[in-house]
């Protein structure tokens, strides 16, 4: 078999009469000599014959007329068809997008909204829970197995579930009508009403003392009444409505606080703090104004304010700058005060008795001096006790707030500015991410819709429009 590739290529062109005269002569010569190529050429001729047998196809008259109408009928028809196609495609896209939105995007948005709502409600409830401690005048005691929650940090409200071991429980002292915070839990079984609390068999591990708590409750009066809500049949709720603490009325508690506040202008803060103090019927105990080595002004103030204005003033001071720290304390000196009073009474009795014994007795100077000398310690003791009680009274009636205003350095402000900028950037990034989270599915949906529309277009065109 002749495998002359070039000759075969020539034979193909020879068949079509596309060779030059010289090439044609060469092929003729080769064909006379080579049987393989002669056979190959015969096959090419046979192939042509086979192909030519089925050469012609005819357009059907209908098709011919339709085609004629298509291009002779003009552009208008084509444009109408195009419009129809576009309408169908646009409709498909819109429908698909709507479906995709309904089934894919909307739940996402919904989730996002509910997430934000949850977040907001959490914030609200968190805030409410916190503020309830200082604003609510009632607390709730649940019967049950465990402590659900406590908001007793501020001492005027708490949620307690019976029987559980938990801190921040309450103990009721029906004898004097006051209750105190305890550090340990109670195992109360029945809180039918406030008056029977003390008789319930919950155990008090240890009394809470005011000294061991920094921000905790003031002693309160016992509730005048308690309400039981029967709709919670398995968990009777006892709502106790305590009275506001009344400092100095039987109980002696000294309130004091120290605050450290960064401000832009120490002088302005100082002036404002003085104004706040005066507005609340207080006075400035001592003040000190100094400048540090790096030029920052620092103001130290000791404010004395009436007990009932203590929290008001403290909150007002918080608004003057960036609060870096607040320490507040309340020292219950009731016992000491009582003891001092008792000691004073005793001293008075002894003194009075001694005075009565010496009274109207005739004696010489020497004896009189000795008698007076014997009375003097008691007299001094009585004076000392009185002074001490007066100091206590003063401390109880007028709370002390020590506040330091320090100007922030430039660096600090810059740092704060940067923090603000970073926070804003983070917020924007979060917003962008949220948008992206919506955009990506929307884009995917759009692409899917486009593909669907394309498919529908092709399908409809092939099935209906063309025919």
């Amino acid at each position, binding site marked *: 078999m002749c495998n002359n590739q070039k000759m*075969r290529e020539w034979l193909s062109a020879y068949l*079509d009469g596309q060779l030059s005269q010289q090439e044609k002569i060469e092929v003729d010569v080769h064909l006379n000599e080579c049987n393989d190529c002669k056979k190959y050429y015969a096959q090419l001729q046979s192939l042509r014959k086979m192909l030519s*047998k089925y050469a012609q196809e005819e357009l059907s008259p209908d098709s011919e007329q339709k085609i004629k109408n298509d291009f002779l009928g003009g552009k208008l028809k*084509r444009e109408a068809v195009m419009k129809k196609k576009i309408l169908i495609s646009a409709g498909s896209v819109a429908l698909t997008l709507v479906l995709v939105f309904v089934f894919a995007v909307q739940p996402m948005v919904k989730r996002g909204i509910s997430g934000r709502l949850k977040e907001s409600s959490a914030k609200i409830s968190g805030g409410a829970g916190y503020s309830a401690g200082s604003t609510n005048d009632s607390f709730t005691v649940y019967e049950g197995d465990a402590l659900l929650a406590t908001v007793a940090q501020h001492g005027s409200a708490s949620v307690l579930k019976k029987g559980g071991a938990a801190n921040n429980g309450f103990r009721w002292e029906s004898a004097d009508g006051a209750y105190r915070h305890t550090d340990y839990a109670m195992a109360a079984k029945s809180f039918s009403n406030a008056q029977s609390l003390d008789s319930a068999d919950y155990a008090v591990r240890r009394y809470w003392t005011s000294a061991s708590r920094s921000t905790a409750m003031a002693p309160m009066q016992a509730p005048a009444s308690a309400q039981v809500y029967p709709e919670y049949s398995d968990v009777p709720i006892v709502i106790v409505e305590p009275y506001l603490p009344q400092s100095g009325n039987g109980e002696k508690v000294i309130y004091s606080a120290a605050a450290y506040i960064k401000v832009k202008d120490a002088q302005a803060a100082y002036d404002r703090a003085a104004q706040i103090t005066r507005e609340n019927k207080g006075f400035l105990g001592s003040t000190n104004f100094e400048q540090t080595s790096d030029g920052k002004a620092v103001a130290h103030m000791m404010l004395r304010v009436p007990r009932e204005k203590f929290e008001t003033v403290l909150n007002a001071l918080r608004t003057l700058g960036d609060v870096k720290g607040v320490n507040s304390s309340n020292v219950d000196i009731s016992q000491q005060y009582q003891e001092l009073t008792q000691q004073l009474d005793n001293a008075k009795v002894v003194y009075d008795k001694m005075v009565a014994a010496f009274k109207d007795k005739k004696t010489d100077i020497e004896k009189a001096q000795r008698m007076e000398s014997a009375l003097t310690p008691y007299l001094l003791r009585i004076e000392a006790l009185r002074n001490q009680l007066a100091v206590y009274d003063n401390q109880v009636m007028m709370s002390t707030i020590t506040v330091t205003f320090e100007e922030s350095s430039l660096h600090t402000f810059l740092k704060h500015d940067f923090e603000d900028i970073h926070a804003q950037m983070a917020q924007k990034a979060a917003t962008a991410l949220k948008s992206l989270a919506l955009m990506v599915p929307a884009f995917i949906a759009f692409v899917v819709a486009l593909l669907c529309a394309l498919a529908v277009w092709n399908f409809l065109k*092939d099935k209906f429009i063309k025919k």
Partner: protein
Amino acid sequence: MHKTDEELMMGYRSGDTSCLEEIFGRYKKQIFNYAFKVLTNRADAEEAVSESFYILTGKKEAYKPDPQAKFSTWLYTITHNVCIDLIRKRKRVIFIWGVKRDKDSDCEEQWDLPDNKDLPDQAAEQNDCAAAVKKALEKLPLEMKEALVLREYQQLSYDEIGKVLNCTLEKVKILLFRARERLRIELLPFMKEADNV
């Protein structure tokens, strides 16, 4: 009086739509056959014819008679481009639906075969041969198929084929040689006459 294609086209350019009808009458069969062989689908071929003549109407202003290029070559070039577009479109459909549309029974086209009822054996043989030719043609790569169809069925010269396919003369030669070589191997069992040489 017989007008040349170029004269008819110029007549159509000047607003005589009967010239277009005359052109359509002359070329409808050739264009349809070319498209049918290339696309192997009657509906697509009809669409190709329609589209080709529609494009022709749109490009009438751009047409300029050229002694170096026949009108038929220009028309085949338009049809060639239309066929390429249709094949691309068909591929997109396949991509979207994941199936070959021309495999559907509705679209499967049979070539018109000679009616030889009197000679059943011969007819059957010819049917087999036609089916084999069709199959072999379908298997050819598009460019080879087009070159072969233009040469064997439309009798275009190598030069004209080169213009339609936008390739060189040498490439046309190679395309035709390779197409014939493939068909020869495929259809060898049917070449009885050649065996007798």
